[in-house]
Structure formats: structure tokens, C-alpha cells
């Protein structure tokens, strides 16, 4: 059963009722009034009413009943065979006309249903579209609005229909606040699809504004005449917000690049000055000493910057890895304080550290944990006016250790607070308050804390009211496990008073400086510039130790190590890999290639000295 209002039960009831009424009328109406055909009219009316109201089946039922009734009358008077031919014809007529009327009525019903279905499906479709749709007639008067259009314009369908579109679709330019020409008029006038200008704001009936994006297209009939316009528009608040976010990220990236250039240039200035001093100082020992100290300090500064940069790269690529072990947080915090102390003291800040007496164990990467807290302490030192106060406190909660780094410094405005941990965000960028650094310290601190399963929060009452950073780390109850040794123990080696060291690097300056350093330390050195030369030199020079760069021309450092290890004379040599990457993966590859040790460039002179000493004592 398709059409509404027609139901089987009701249809049949109507058929019975109508036939009953017909029967009564036929019984009591004088045939004088209608003539002999009266029953025919009556029954046709009965069938038509039943079919219209009750559908095809009701019509057919009424036809059947009417035929039976007519037959009854005919048969009651005469037998079928003795009946007048006209009466017989009447019965047949009733039957056929009834079927025909029922069928035609059904056809009308069906086409009416189809049209209604199409209208309904169009309505449902328009109602379901996420965009607002308004249709108008050829005069630009509103014909329909879908629910989104109702929401955006604030006009209901009933209020809007029949009004000129201008009244309900009020658009202005976002910047000039001047009304914009209604796109529907243009679409009607020009007969083509009209897209709207940028920065359009729709003003709703109640005055609320939505940035929108729209287009108007003429509706054409089969002959190509314009019947109206369909206007489609959508709220682009969210898209605009995303676009602004992107722009902001792009701006911050540009600023970061400028800051990066600035921060990398800065330490270079004193290094160049110091180099010139070395050239000019002559015998002035004090000047030379001072120049060297400066160079070392500023070089360290650059290495730190580049380390931070590499960490940022790792975070972005999600490649940062932790070496988890049981770590005493108190030791970590002491180390962090040691790292940040020069900066804190330089600014004349007072530092109050409150630590528990015993160790607190957490599962973590000691280096990375130290980095979190030294970053927070450095931050406090930088963003506090000289002579300020910094507090570092540790509290134990049920399952967490809570570390607070608090200062009475510049504070953070409510506007900046939500973005403080975002990459490259620096609160102040004026020429007077540039605090140096890349604006990634807090980002690193946040990522590292989260990688340790902890949380970090920033609090500040506002500008000039100091800030507080709170780190929560999960506590572990288990006892610390023994640390695995850094590398395999050194192989025994003939004790000679000093070592023969082969230095392999394609960078001339690295080779020269390392040779100088090792000679000063009392060792013999020999050098090679590429992989093949290195293998030959190892054979002819037979060093105790080979310092091998990994990225070498001709043969990689890994390959050189493998070839040396294959030789009978190469089994006992100590092979040290020098690389710019301190990744676990690099260390593993180095071990597999036959290296005993792995050092990260630039090699700390003290680290190299210690390594050589260790080798000596283990071989002695």
C-alpha cells in the first residue's frame, strides 16, 4: 500500500459500506426518477468512491459486490437464462465499468504518489545537505529554504517564502562592512553561475554574523528558460579558523628560521674575534688563555643549539628514543641544577632547592630527564629580571613525583599561556627582550615528560607575576637494576708506554686538530683521508687504536672496520667509531661492524683522553 490515507481495512469497509448504501438506494429509489439505468449510475458512483478512497482493491471489491447485488436482483426476478438481455448486459456493464474505473483511479493514484515521492525525496535531500540552500523564482522571490539556510539566516520557511531574497539574505564585506550585491540578481541577469566574492559575511535576522562562501546558479526548464535561482552557501567559520592556524604556524616557522640564523651567528662572533686575538696576541699568555676559554664556551653553546635542533627534528619525525632504566630523580635534579647554575648565577638569581634526603626512583632516561629540568631552570633564569628568585621543589604523591620550578620573573600573560609549549613560541620578540635560544626548550620539555608517562603544566598569575612549571612523573617502587656497560670490555693489548693512533677523517681540520691534541697527550699519530687509505695505513702503521669517521669517501667506516677485523693483525686493534649521529641504531651498526667504542662528533677532548686512559689501564 503506497499512498497515504488509503488503507486496506478502511478501503474494504468503504467498499462494503458504499455497496450497502447503493443497495438501499437501489431498493428504495424509484426507477421512475432515473429510468432503468439508475442502478448503473449508483454502482458506478459506489465503485468510483471506493477506488478513490480505498484504492484498487477496494474498487475491485466494490465492483464485485455491486455485480453480485445486481445479479441478485436480476436472478431474484428471473433466472439468468430467462432474464432480459438488457439486464444481463447491465450486469456485464457494471462489471467492466467497475474494473475500468478502479484501474484508472489506481493510475491516477500512482502518478500522484510518484510526484509526491519525488517532491519528498528532493525535500529530504535538501534538508540533509550540509550546506544552506535557498531557491527563488524568476523574480528573485524565495521559494524554499532548507534547515541549514533557516539556521544561518534566522528566517523560518513560513516567514521567508514569497519575500524578495534581499530581505532574508543580507551579505556584507568582512573588511569594508559594505553590502555586497546579491548573487541571485546577478545569476538571474546574466544567466550563469555566480560565485561570491571573498570575505563575505552573512548577517542573520537576529544580527549574528557568519563568514560564508556561496554560489548562485540559474534554474532552467527543459526549454532553457530561467525559472529561478538556486543559491548555495555554507558557514566557513571553521575553515577560516584552520586557515588562520596554518598562517600562524607558517609565521612562527619563518620567525624560527630568523631566530635560528641569529642564534647560530651569535656564538660565531666571539669565536672569530678570539681567533684574531690568537693571531695578534703574540706572547700575551693571558689574552691567549682568555681567547681559548671564550672559543670553547661559545663552541659548546653552538653544539648545544645544534643538539636541540636535532631533538626537534627527532620529535617532528617521531624518532626520539628513550633509554629507559631505573633512575634516581634526585641525582637527575642535581645534574640539571649544575647545568643551569652558570646561567642562574650570571643573572644574579637566588636558587632555592628543596630535595628529599633519600633517592626517588623513576623509570626514565637520565639524560633526557636532566634535559627537562635544566630547560625549565634555564627558562626561569632567562625570563626573570636579574636578582630574582628561583625555587626547585620535589614532593611525593601517592603514585607520582611532583617537581615544581617556580620563579618570581616576567610571568606569562593569559593570552600566551595556552601556547607556551608550542614549537617555536617565544613570549617576547622585541629587540630589548630577546632572550636568546630557539624557543624549543619548553616544547622539548613537554615531549620528553610525556614520553616518560608524565605531565607538565604551566601556571602564571599574569605578566610580571612569575611563573610555575609543574612536572608529574610516575614513581616506581622497584629497586634500581644494574646498568649494562657502555661497550664491550677492551681487548688486551701489548702494553706500550704510549699508544699509536690512526686518525681517519676526510675533514682536514678534524684530522689536524685531533692529531695535535693526541700528540700533546703523548701519543703517536698517523692519519688517513678515505676508507681505502685507512685500511692500507692500518696494515702498514699497525696502530693500537683507530679513530674512524663513518662517512668516508671510497669505503664507509663500517666497511673499513670489517676489513680490518678480517685481517690477522686487525683482531687486536681498538676501533673507535666517530659519527655525528648518536642514535642507538648507529651504535648497533658500529658494534656489528667490529667497533669497540662509539664517540659522537665533535669529540670532547676530555672524553677522548679518558678513553685512552681507560685503554691503557685495561691493557696494563
Amino acid at each position: 500500500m503506497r499512498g497515504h490515507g488509503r488503507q486496506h481495512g478502511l478501503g474494504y469497509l468503504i467498499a462494503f459500506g458504499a455497496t450497502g448504501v447503493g443497495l438501499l438506494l437501489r431498493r428504495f429509489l424509484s426507477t421512475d426518477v432515473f429510468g432503468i439505468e439508475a442502478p448503473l449510475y449508483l454502482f458506478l458512483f459506489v465503485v468510483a468512491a471506493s477506488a478513490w478512497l480505498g484504492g484498487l482493491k477496494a474498487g475491485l471489491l466494490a465492483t464485485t459486490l455491486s455485480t453480485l447485488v445486481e445479479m441478485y436482483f436480476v436472478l431474484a426476478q428471473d433466472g439468468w437464462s430467462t432474464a432480459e438481455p438488457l439486464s444481463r448486459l447491465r450486469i456485464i456493464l457494471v462489471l467492466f465499468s467497475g474494473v475500468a474505473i478502479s484501474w484508472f483511479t489506481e493510475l491516477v493514484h500512482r502518478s500522484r504518489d510518484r510526484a509526491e515521492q519525488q517532491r519528498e525525496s528532493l525535500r529530504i535531500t535538501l534538508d540533509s545537505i550540509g550546506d544552506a540552500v535557498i531557491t527563488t523564482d524568476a523574480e528573485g522571490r524565495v521559494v524554499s529554504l532548507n534547515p541549514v539556510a533557516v539556521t544561518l539566516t534566522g528566517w523560518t520557511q513560513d516567514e521567508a517564502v514569497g519575500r524578495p531574497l534581499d530581505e532574508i539574505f543580507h551579505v556584507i564585506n568582512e573588511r569594508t562592512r559594505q553590502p555586497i550585491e546579491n548573487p541571485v540578481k546577478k545569476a538571474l541577469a546574466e544567466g550563469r553561475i555566480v560565485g561570491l566574492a571573498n570575505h563575505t559575511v552573512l548577517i542573520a535576522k537576529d544580527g549574528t554574523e557568519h563568514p560564508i562562501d556561496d554560489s548562485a546558479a540559474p534554474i532552467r526548464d527543459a526549454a532553457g528558460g530561467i525559472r529561478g535561482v538556486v543559491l548555495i552557501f555554507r558557514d566557513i567559520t571553521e575553515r577560516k579558523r584552520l586557515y588562520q592556524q596554518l598562517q600562524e604556524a607558517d609565521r612562527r616557522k619563518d620567525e624560527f628560521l630568523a631566530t635560528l640564523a641569529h642564534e647560530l651567528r651569535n656564538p660565531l662572533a666571539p669565536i672569530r674575534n678570539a681567533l684574531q686575538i690568537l693571531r695578534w696576541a703574540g706572547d700575551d699568555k693571558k689574552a691567549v688563555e682568555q681567547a681559548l676559554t671564550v672559543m670553547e664556551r661559545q663552541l659548546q653553546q653552538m653544539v648545544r643549539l645544534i643538539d636541540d635542533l636535532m631533538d626537534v627534528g627527532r620529535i617532528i619525525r617521531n624518532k626520539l628514543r628513550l633509554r629507559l632504566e631505573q633512575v634516581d630523580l634526585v641525582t637527575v635534579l642535581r645534574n640539571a641544577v649544575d647545568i643551569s647554575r652558570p646561567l642562574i648565577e650570571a643573572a644574579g638569581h637566588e636558587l632555592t632547592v628543596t630535595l628529599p634526603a633519600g633517592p626517588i626512583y623513576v623509570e626514565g632516561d637520565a639524560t633526557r630527564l636532566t634535559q627537562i629540568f635544566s630547560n625549565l631552570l634555564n627558562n626561569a633564569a632567562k625570563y626573570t629580571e636579574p636578582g630574582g628568585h628561583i625555587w626547585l621543589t620535589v614532593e611525593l604523591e601517592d603514585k607520582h613525583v611532583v617537581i615544581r620550578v617556580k620563579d618570581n620573573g616576567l610571568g606569562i600573560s593569559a593570552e600566551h599561556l595556552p601556547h607556551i609549549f608550542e614549537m617555536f613560541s617565544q613570549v617576547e620578540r622585541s629587540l630589548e627582550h630577546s632572550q636568546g635560544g630557539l624557543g624549543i626548550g619548553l616544547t622539548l620539555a613537554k615531549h620528553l615528560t610525556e614520553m616518560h608517562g608524565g605531565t607538565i603544566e604551566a601556571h602564571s598569575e599574569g605578566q610580571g607575576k612569575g611563573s610555575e612549571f609543574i612536572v608529574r612523573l610516575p614513581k616506581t617502587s622497584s629497586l634500581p637494576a644494574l646498568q649494562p656497560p657502555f661497550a664491550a670490555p677492551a681487548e688486551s693489548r701489548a702494553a706500550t708506554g704510549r699508544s699509536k693512533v690512526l686518525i681517519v677523517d676526510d675533514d682536514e681540520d678534524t684530522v689536524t686538530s685531533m692529531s695535535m691534541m693526541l700528540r700533546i697527550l703523548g701519543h703517536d699519530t698517523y692519519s688517513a683521508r678515505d676508507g681505502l687509505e685507512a685500511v692500507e695505513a692500518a696494515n702498514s702503521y699497525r696502530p693500537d687504536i683507530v679513530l674512524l669517521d663513518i662517512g668516508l669517501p671510497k669505503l664507509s667506516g663500517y666497511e673499513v672496520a670489517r676489513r680490518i677485523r678480517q685481517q690477522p693483525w686487525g683482531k687486536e686493534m681498538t676501533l673507535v667509531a666517530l659519527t655525528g649521529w648518536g642514535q642507538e641504531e648507529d651504535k648497533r651498526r658500529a658494534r656489528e661492524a667490529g667497533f669497540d667504542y662509539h664517540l659522537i662528533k665533535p669529540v670532547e677532548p676530555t672524553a677522548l683522553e679518558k678513553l685512552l686512559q681507560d685503554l691503557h689501564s685495561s691493557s696494563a
Partner: protein
Amino acid sequence: MRVLVADDNKDTADTLGMLLRLWGHEVRVAYDGPSALLLACRFKPHAVLLDIQMPKMNGGDVALNLKRQFNSEKILIIAISASDPDDPRLTRYKSAFDAFLCKPCELERLQELLADCRSRTVSYQSVAPARNTVAGTAS
């Protein structure tokens, strides 16, 4: 020549100061903007080498103040900065500097500029052309 150096990076300021002394100049060093200005009043330098990003008062403002206080013809003011010279924040200070050197600055260039300045302070006749060449490099 009397040369005043100002940079909030102590290492940079000190090493530049040492170098200038080795070159035979009389040098004073300041680590922020206001101290640079105060020192300049007492020291009356022939040349001032200013970092731009400094706490309290930036190098640009120091330069503008110096140009107002001193006979601007007689004092050579050089910016030595790690900032991009095209940074829009620096535009308003451009006129206050006779030259802009990027960190790490070419020390030969610095020597040339100072030598130019010395010749000007010795012979006032040559002031105008010398200044033009210096100012030309600043833009």
C-alpha cells in the same frame, strides 16, 4: 682612537674589546644599552660598535641618542648584529648607523671602517666624501 663596544654577550664584547686594544685603540666595553650611553658621555668615543638586540635599551635606540647628543659628523656608529639587516624592526634605526656589519663580522672590513674614521678625525677637510662612502655601505 677611542672606541666604545657594546654587546650583551659578554664574550663577544670582551673579545672585540681585546682585539681593538691589540689594534692599538683605546677601548671601553658596555654590556647593555643604558651603560653604553653613559659611558659614551664620559668617554667621548670616535667610534661606537653596537650590538642591536640588547636588554633595557636596544642598540638602535642607543645609536639614535648618540647621534642627537654628539656632532653626528664626528662619531662613527657601526651596528654589529646577528639580526637580518632587512628585519622590519630595524628600519627606523637605519639612519642612525653609518654601517651595518653582520655577525660574525669581517674584521678586515671593521679595520677599514675604523681607518676611514681615523683619517676623518685627523683631517676635517675630507669628512664629507669619507662619510659618503661609509654611509653608502650601510644601506
